[in-house]
């Protein structure tokens, strides 16, 4: 049912753990299946310098978090928010019933960025800049 890339990320997930005193933090849940994810961000200037996550969920949920964190780490916030759950799902080749698992990872990122902006209102992009709000398909 799963492609090898899912199994690989699932068995060796990147960036698992917590960050003490994070700049952004969020915990989100899936109403679809009860999966839960938390994400920690350390932000330096415009850049997501570090990202850690922990996931309660199926192999697809854990692999989605792992892949998303790998892509996002080191990117600017603007670049990171361009990433979509559809891209994660496509890269992992997730089957249809598992698409909602990739949504959770991106919802968690957006929620953690929102937390960061609450703490640092000056960092919030002005209209016209890249939005930090979830762009699409949120079932989580």
């Amino acid at each position, binding site marked *: 049912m*799963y492609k090898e890339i899912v199994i690989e990320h699932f068995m060796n997930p990147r960036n*698992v753990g917590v960050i003490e005193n994070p700049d952004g933090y969020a*915990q989100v849940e899936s109403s679809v*299946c009860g999966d839960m994810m938390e994400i920690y961000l350390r932000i330096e200037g415009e850049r997501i310098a570090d990202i850690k996550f922990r*996931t*309660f969920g*199926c*192999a697809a949920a854990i692999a989605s978090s792992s892949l998303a964190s790998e892509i996002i780490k080191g990117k600017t916030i603007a670049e990171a928010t361009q990433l979509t759950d559809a891209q994660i799902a496509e890269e992992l080749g997730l089957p249809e019933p598992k698409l909602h698992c990739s949504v959770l990872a991106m919802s968690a990122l957006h929620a953690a960025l929102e937390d960061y902006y609450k703490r640092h209102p000056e960092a919030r992009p002005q209209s016209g800049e890249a939005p930090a709000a979830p762009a699409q398909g949120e079932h989580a």
Partner: protein
Amino acid sequence: MKPIPPEEMMSTRRVIYMDHSATTAVDPRVVEAMLPYFTERYGNPSSLYRLGAEARTAIEAARQTIAELIGARPKEILFTSCGTESDNLALRGVAWASRHKGRHIITTPIEHHAITHTCEQLAHEFGFRITYVPVDGDGLVDPEDVARAITEETILISVMYANNEVGTIEPIAEIGRIARERGIPFHTDAVQAGGQLPINVDALGVDLLSLSGHKFYAPKGVGVLYVREGTPLLPTQTGGGQEFHRRAGTENVPYIVGMAKALELAYASLSEEAPRLQRLRDRLIEGILERIPGARLTGHRTQRLPGHASFVFGGVDGEAILVYLDRANVAASTGSACASGEGTPSPVLEAMGITGRQALGSLRLSLGRENTEEDVEYVLNVLPPIIEKLREFSPLCPDMALR
């Protein structure tokens, strides 16, 4: 054996199959019994010439065998295509036949979907009222609750013999006595019990009983519905006059022959096989509860199927456990929402009071003929590090006070 770290689990050893509650491999002796009926004795049992008569003789011999094994008469044995069909026919057949007498059915919340979804349809589309008697924390039905639920309108009681998810064996004989006293037809879904627990329809006091061949080393696609003589039952599949005009359709001769052979073999070895499985099961249960912090057995500790061990583990998802176990060459199953594709936690665990995320971390290991002590030891060595590793990823673990 020392614990095997997850990274080193990609061993080349054979698959350790611990999902016998899902299905079993066909016994080679069963295959052998079936083979002539595909290519040499392929006649239609309804045909008059000798080729047809041969096939007829074979299915009637199979009917005789199965009837004797469960203490029934041959004309009370109907061959079906699977356990689901047997359950469907029992419920719909009795409901349709008794609809003018009353429209109340008593069942439980832990039945297989073949029962619950049929009950839901009878309720929503045909105006039947369904009472779900509760189960306790071990998944046991209290026969007194069944007695209390009976009304003048009650036309059928259906309670499973043993539960597929948690292995609990229900007090069927006691419920049977109550049903008989009140003159209400009593069905039991014995799909998990077939070949694993003794079945005698009179001792159990049942009027209808479902079996599925592939749970006892016969092929998939064949089942039995026992219907006690005099039980009201309308056919739900109509056509030819097969199966005493109660289940139309040309009989699946090779599979029926195979199923009878398989049930015969299962009961011939039951007195040795059941205690053997029970020992392996108890070792598995003890080992898992001892080695995995926060592990909890689901279902009754002793009143359970001989090869059935089921658990919930806090903080981890059942599907993730299965994917890891698969990598370690262990085949098992879970009631996890994300694995079932149903999107809801297990109604069985919910009925037993195991709710929310706790219910998502379920694992079922069901043992069978080919499992050995070595298999059990292997699982006891690979499972604890899998749970530990998954808990490292889990945001729930610090809250769950696991250690």
